[in-house]
């Protein structure tokens, strides 16, 4: 494809290490309405871009998935860094000069740091809350005693107190299980990021692991799962290491260059 035939602006998916066997175009569908993703190379690096981009894309499953699919195809081809969703470059010259040239060393080091690594997302959820409650009553005699005393009719205050005791017991159990899961995983991972813990979620982790450790990590999770009948564990991935390597890029001088 001749670059002169391309239409600005350009949607940027990823930056990656160049190599002789990379295709010129990627197979995955581009973000909506844009051109087929192509590679722009300079200084041993490539930028993955689509021409004819919109100025921005609304946050939707469809658009996020298009972005993700292109990034993940690229990561299977060569060590790559995902770029943040909705990064639009006004010109190829800007990508070549400001990123692939000015930031070449920084980018190459960053690529080296995620080479051969994958991301897994692990989420443990309470499977059955009725069963959880039953277990807590079984194991905590003071909660059981209070519950039994309430069955003969009790005041509002006692009911609130029982609720709080149960809630605390659930949180305590959640934290203990989360710590146990992390202890299993820690020796196997290179990096670990904790996500938000809404009600019902026991653990929510993003892991950066060497590809060669994938099986051991899965083993550890199966072990945790086998030991805990109150939770269900969901493994998502392998993913591109979005959590650990995604780049945010701003073009400070859009107007001059476009």
């Amino acid at each position, binding site marked *: 494809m001749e670059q002169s035939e391309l239409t600005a602006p350009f949607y940027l998916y990823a930056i990656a290490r160049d190599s002789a066997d990379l295709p010129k175009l990627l197979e995955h569908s581009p973000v909506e309405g844009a051109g087929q993703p192509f590679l722009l190379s300079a200084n041993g690096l490539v930028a993955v871009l689509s021409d004819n981009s919109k100025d921005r894309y609304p946050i939707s499953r469809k658009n996020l998935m298009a972005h993700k699919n292109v990034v993940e195809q690229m990561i299977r081809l060569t060590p790559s860094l995902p770029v943040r969703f909705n990064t639009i470059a006004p010109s190829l010259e800007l990508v070549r000069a400001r990123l692939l040239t000015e930031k070449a060393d920084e980018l190459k080091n960053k690529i080296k740091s995620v080479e051969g690594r994958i991301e897994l997302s692990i989420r443990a959820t309470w499977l059955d809350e009725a069963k959880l409650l039953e277990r807590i009553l079984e194991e905590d005699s003071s909660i059981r005693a209070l519950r039994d005393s309430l069955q003969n009719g009790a005041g509002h205050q006692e009911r609130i107190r029982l609720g709080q005791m149960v809630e605390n017991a659930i949180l305590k159990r959640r934290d203990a299980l989360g710590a146990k899961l992390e202890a299993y995983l820690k020796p196997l991972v290179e990096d670990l990021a904790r996500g938000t813990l809404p009600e019902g979620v026991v653990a929510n982790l993003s892991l950066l692991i060497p590809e060669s450790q994938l099986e051991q990590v899965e083993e550890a999770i199966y072990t945790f799962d086998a030991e805990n009948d109150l939770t269900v564990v969901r*493994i998502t991935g392998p993913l591109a290491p979005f959590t650990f390597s995604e780049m945010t890029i701003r073009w400070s001088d859009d107007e001059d260059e476009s």
Partner: protein
Amino acid sequence: MSKREGLEGIELLGPLGAFLGPILFIAENIADQAEEALLDEKPIVHELTRLGADLDAGRIEENDFYEREAELLERLEWITQQKEARLR
């Protein structure tokens, strides 16, 4: 004991989590602004996580999951638009 593999293509928290996650490299030095800019989005990511967990535990159906996810993404989109407008 129970385990459910990720449903194909269902998990957005890869690209979305990162979209709201730590920022490691920036062509221009705007890290502080970017961190601050994430405050309003975090409750929505919290909700999206809860929604995913509800699906894992079978508390909601897949169709409902997609429907509620779309609502949350629309809210996220709205917040993003407001912020962009403010910057102009």
